[in-house]
């Protein structure tokens, strides 16, 4: 049995592939900052908030981390539809991603905050800094730098997770692939190409985020040593 590989679909469907790539990147970039902000807020709440905030964060984090993303997406999207809330698939996908990545980020950032030696927080308060000032100027920059590799991995994983969003008809690269293969019946070639594209995108995203680190962490840029 011999199989004739046929990649000719690329000629006709290249624009669609680009479209899918842009949508995937858009979904990813729209979710990173809000997800990071949500996760950091939750980490701070869990560490320094009143007991009810701590409990709420734990429930949120454990609930998200022990259920599949796709169930969360279905619950949100179909639930909102039933409630007559008119929200498109793309925004719904972004919201679901933000909520999902927020929970994982919360755990990562919590570890980051806890890894900072307590003496520094004591020193900050002895310098008459308000707790919020110490959090912003002393703790947050160090926490982010310490857990940066884990954060990068998490955001790359999130980009890969966008691949499931076509299940709620949110357009992205994997959904485009499905469309192409349904017209060309060249499923293997199409998904091979898609796999390669994801590999490239994942590497590019990782490089970009590492570049952001170089810009944001002047000490790292100058000295090259970890905190």
């Amino acid at each position, binding site marked *: 049995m011999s199989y004739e590989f046929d990649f000719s679909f690329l000629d006709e469907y290249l624009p669609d592939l680009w479209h899918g790539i842009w949508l995937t990147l858009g979904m990813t970039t729209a979710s990173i900052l809000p997800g990071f902000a949500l996760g950091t807020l939750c980490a701070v709440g869990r560490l320094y908030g009143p007991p009810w905030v701590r409990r709420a964060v734990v429930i949120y984090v454990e609930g998200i981390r022990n259920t599949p993303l*796709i169930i969360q997406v279905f619950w949100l999207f179909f639930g909102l539809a039933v409630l007559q809330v008119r929200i498109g698939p793309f925004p719904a996908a972004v919201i679901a991603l933000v909520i999902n990545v927020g929970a994982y980020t919360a755990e990562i950032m919590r570890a980051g905050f806890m890894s900072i030696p307590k003496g520094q927080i004591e020193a900050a308060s002895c310098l008459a800094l308000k707790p919020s000032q110490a959090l912003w100027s002393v703790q947050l920059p160090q926490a982010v730098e310490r857990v940066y590799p884990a954060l990068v991995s998490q955001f790359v994983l999130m980009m890969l*997770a966008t691949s499931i969003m076509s*299940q709620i008809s949110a357009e992205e690269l*994997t959904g485009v692939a499905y469309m192409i293969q349904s017209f060309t019946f060249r499923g293997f070639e199409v998904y091979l190409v*898609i796999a390669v594209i994801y590999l490239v995108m994942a590497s590019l995203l990782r490089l970009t985020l590492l570049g952001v680190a170089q810009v944001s962490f002047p000490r790292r840029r100058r000295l090259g040593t970890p905190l």
Partner: protein
Amino acid sequence: MLGLTIEQIAYLFRGAGWTIVLSLLGFVGGTLLGLPIALARSAHSKLARALSGALVQLVQGIPLPVIMFVVYFGISIGGFDVPALVAAGVAMTLYAGAYLGEIWKGCILAVPRTQWEAGECLALTSTQRFIFVILPQALRIAVPPTVGFLVQIVKNTSYSVVINFFDLTYSAKVINNSTFKPFTVFTIAALIYFAICFPMSLLASRFERRLHRG
């Protein structure tokens, strides 16, 4: 009850059963694939490390749904009629094998250098050293992250919905399409996943704490 018929709830649980089957398939297959990968990743040979590293990077850089599609369409090239379970099982094996390989490589390398040297001083060959000194300790270190990764396996079986594998997610989707009660259906599905995953997460944390205490 809960707006769903007994049949519908039973349908969900049948899907849950297949989720567990696929998870076990993925774990067993992943172990068989992951062990050689872990050994290659921590080998002396730079070539072995690089090749296995490339394989791991490959699998970790492709979304699991896409891996499932590639496997599904790849197998059907041979002219075989591919049951979704087989395709999903192979995909989960690749996925779990790559991740477990990396995790276990980390555990092997986490055994303190002094242990390797102690084995050398006892005049053991490097294979004996590995089996009797390093491996037992690496296994101990490996328990928490492996149990933790089991949770990932169970959750990620849900991606098999894209090749229409009859797991819990697929059955929930079907029930929702016929009843239009998404909050009920998907909450039940979420609770079932949670009931499977959360105890394992707790176990992993407990193992982790015990490891660092002793």
